[in-house]
């Protein structure tokens, strides 16, 4: 449905220039609002990468962004627009949280894979429903996934506030019971290296998932089929690749990536499911995927960029005194300028002659 006009793999020059241009524009905005842009960006950098601890926190934010980004990207590759990564993440979290708390005494070797599976499956089923509705009933996946995002939020309200997953909790935080120790993803950074780091094994899972994403799409028959459906649905159909089946499969895979993100937030970070949990990752994921041109390395880099903004933006507020809304505005400008990369390309074009295809 959409062709990346530009691949990160062709060289990072243009995205990098875009980001710089955007930062200048954002700095202008900060300056107009009466703050010092240098201080602001210094705080941004320090907040994102200033210390091993900050880096570990940035990575922690990058994990769900990366996974939901992969979720959106894999669907894009098959020509579907998955706006539902947020909902799929939540279903994955609920499923993982339920399994992890249901049998808290199981040893890690049993419970952790079980929780992992539950998270992935939960997301996959939820995503698969959108794929199935599209394949069987022709329901536009954009509608279904938008509606699913809202639905799961209210279902979670119920589950955690006065439904079956509600935990008798001290002060009324709507949350589930904690998962068993066996379901916890261990912290992988020793305390003497980075004190009080929360960086858990989920980071490795996310990297593994990125490799899996690449391997699936470019090294397996299924991935080939998904890309073929995405780029030439009718050609794929006549060659015996049923696009409808692939729609269900790819939405399930997309849901699986997002569900894994939810599971990692539960097993790695919170050790339970909270109401109003991990808000917004699935929406940022759309931008993460598109910015990364739906390519593995691109998605990793753009997830890191967004995570850096998220963490660094906090320090722009606490240290440089810049309203968090201004930080949002700067973030939006960066995103916007990167979207309009043709501006940068137009400038770049002066130094090179584009080769035009001849009919």
């Amino acid at each position, binding site marked *: 449905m959409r062709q990346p006009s530009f691949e990160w793999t062709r060289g990072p020059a243009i995205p990098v220039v875009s980001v710089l241009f955007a930062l200048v524009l954002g700095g202008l905005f900060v300056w107009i609002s009466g703050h010092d842009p240098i201080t602001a960006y210094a705080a941004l950098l320090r907040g994102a990468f200033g210390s091993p601890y900050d880096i570990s926190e940035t990575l922690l934010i990058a994990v769900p962004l990366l996974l939901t980004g992969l979720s959106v990207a894999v669907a894009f590759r098959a020509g579907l627009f998955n706006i539902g990564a947020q909902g799929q993440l939540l279903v994955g979290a609920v499923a993982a949280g339920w399994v992890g708390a249901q049998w808290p005494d199981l040893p890690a070797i049993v419970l952790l894979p079980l929780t992992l599976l539950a998270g992935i499956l939960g997301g996959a089923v939820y995503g698969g429903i959108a794929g199935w509705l599209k394949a069987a009933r022709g329901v536009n996946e954009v*509608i279904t996934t938008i*509606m699913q995002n*809202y639905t799961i939020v209210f279902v979670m309200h119920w589950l955690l506030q006065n439904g079956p997953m509600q935990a008798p909790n001290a002060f009324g935080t709507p949350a589930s019971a904690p998962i068993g120790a066996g379901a916890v993803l261990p912290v992988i950074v020793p305390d003497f290296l980075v004190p009080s780091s929360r960086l858990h094994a989920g980071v490795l899972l996310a990297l593994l998932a990125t490799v899996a994403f690449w391997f699936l799409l470019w090294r397996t028959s299924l991935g080939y089929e998904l890309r073929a459906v995405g780029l030439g649905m009718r050609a794929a159909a006549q060659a015996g690749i049923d696009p409808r089946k692939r729609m269900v499969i790819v939405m399930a895979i997309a849901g699986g990536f997002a569900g894994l993100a939810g599971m990692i937030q539960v097993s790695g970070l919170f050790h339970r499911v909270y109401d109003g949990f991990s808000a917004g990752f699935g929406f940022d994921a*759309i931008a993460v995927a598109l910015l990364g041109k739906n390519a593995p390395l691109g998605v990793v880099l753009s997830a890191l960029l967004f995570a850096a903004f998220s963490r660094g933006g906090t320090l722009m507020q606490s240290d440089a005194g810049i309203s968090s809304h201004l930080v*949002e505005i700067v973030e*939006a400008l960066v995103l*916007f300028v990167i*979207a309009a990369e043709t501006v940068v390309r137009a400038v770049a074009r002066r130094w090179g002659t584009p080769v035009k295809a001849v009919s």
Partner: protein
Amino acid sequence: MDVLIGAGVLAATIRLATPVALAALGGVVTERSGVVNIALEGCMLVGAFFGVFAADRTGSLPAAIAAAVVAGILLAAVHALAAITFRADQIVSGMALNILALGLTSYLDYQLYSTTGTPSTIPLVPNVHLGFLENAPVLGGAIGDQSAIVWATLAIVVLLQLFLFRTVPGLRLRSVGEHPRAADTLGIDVRRTRYWAVLASGALAALGGVYLSLSVAGSFSDNMTNGRGFIGLAAMIFGRWTPVGALGAALVFGYGDALSVSLQGVKVAGVEFPVQLLSTIPYLLTVLAVAGFVGRSRMPAADGQPYESEGH
């Protein structure tokens, strides 16, 4: 039975459908011209804020509505600039502008109204009281006392339907969304047409925002549109990219939303449904309606595709 089809539920349906319908109408205009504008949510939000802001500063309702519409148009113009002139990724640009609108309105609201809130004395959009319907059963309760914007929306639906399918500019707009190159070879200015369509979508969405702030709430609060721009996009698809269809889709959604309120506390066979699950009704109802009645819909052929004229 009243909780299902009573006047109160119907009135609530219309109220809740209106902002969604306005966003969906904006979507219809822009996508019919071939530009995807998911910044409608942001356009609504700036409309909501600047409507209140101008109402506060000028004390004039027309000025407030004008300011809101201009704000929506300006935000849409940025999207048009990116999508049409720079052929940017329309989804990313739209996302960026949504974030921008959220940040901007929250920032300004905080700077201007953080402790006191927006003044309670600002002029609001009045309701239209239909006296002659006062004693009409159901109908009187349902439409006898609706905001002027509700009626304006209805008028816009009719006008927009006529515009798209019964006028020359409407014909041109549709041709640009279906086959821009064909339109271009016939001397129709594709970019200008798309600019106008995107700007109009911003204006319509902003009117939806004004409805929320100056008709429903009488004030602004952060992110008060709460995703209605996105629901509007779904309604646009459900309504098959036609104004009348979009209104119908918005009404389905609004009805579900109204039920989620009216069914609170209602017991079925002695069991009360959890209020949280009632809130899922509009979303489930929409998906079911699409799956059950609509099936495959055809989007404008060049929707979302940047157009580059030939001629080097």
